[in-house]
C-alpha cells in the first residue's frame, strides 16, 4: 500500500500547526520518504524529541506498512 507525499505532508502539517513541511519520495516507490520540517514546536527540544513529533504524526502509516522508511530533517524557524 503506497502513500502519497502530499498525504504525509498534510498529516505532519495537521499535527504541527504552523510548520513548514516538505516531503519527497526518495526512491520512486513511495515507501522511502524524506520529510524536512521546520516548526516552532521544536524550539528547545533535542533532535530525537523533534523527530518523535514528526514520527508520531505519521505513526498509523508506519504501523500499516504504507511507509517503510522515513528520513527526517528538522529545524527551528529563524
Amino acid at each position, binding site marked *: 500500500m503506497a502513500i502519497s507525499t502530499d498525504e504525509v505532508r498534510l498529516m505532519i502539517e495537521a499535527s504541527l500547526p504552523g510548520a513548514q513541511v516538505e516531503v519527497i519520495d526518495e526512491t520512486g516507490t513511495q515507501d522511502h520518504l524524506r520529510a524536512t520540517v521546520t516548526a516552532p514546536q521544536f524550539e528547545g527540544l533535542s*533532535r*530525537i524529541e523533534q*523527530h*518523535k513529533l514528526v*514520527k508520531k504524526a505519521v505513526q498509523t502509516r*508506519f504501523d500499516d506498512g504504507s511507509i517503510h*522508511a522515513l*528520513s*527526517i*530533517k528538522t529545524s527551528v524557524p529563524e
Partner: protein
Amino acid sequence: MTEPSLKDRVEELIRDNQVLLFMKGTPEQPRCGFSMRVVNVLESYGVEYGAVDVLPALQPLREVTAEISDWQTFPQLYVNGELVGGCDIVEEMDESGELAGLLGAERPERPAPTAKQELKADDPQQSPPMQIER
C-alpha cells in the same frame, strides 16, 4: 529464578555498553542502508561499540524499544544509556561535531569521496616537466 524478559535483556545491554547500536544485520553484513551508514560513521571514530542484530526478533524488539525509548524504527544508537537517534540524527551530529563530543573521540579526517588518483609515469595527462631557467 524467572527468565529475564526481552525488555530486561535490552535494558541490560543499554546499561552495559557505552555505545550500543541496534541495527538490521551485523556490522560486517548490514542488511539495510541506514544501518550500514550508522556503522560506517561509528567505525570512522574507532570507538568500541556493541551491535545487536534486530532482524531475528524485529517486532518484539520494536515493542521493547517503544516502551523504553518511545522509538521503534531501526537503526537506533544509544550512547551512555540514552537514545541518540537513527541514521539521520547520527549523520547530522557527525557533521556538526557533536557526535565526537558525545563519543569522547576526535572527529576523524574524512578522505575525499573521489577515488584515489594514481599518476603513472606514462600518464599522458601529466604536464611536461618544468623547465628551470638558470
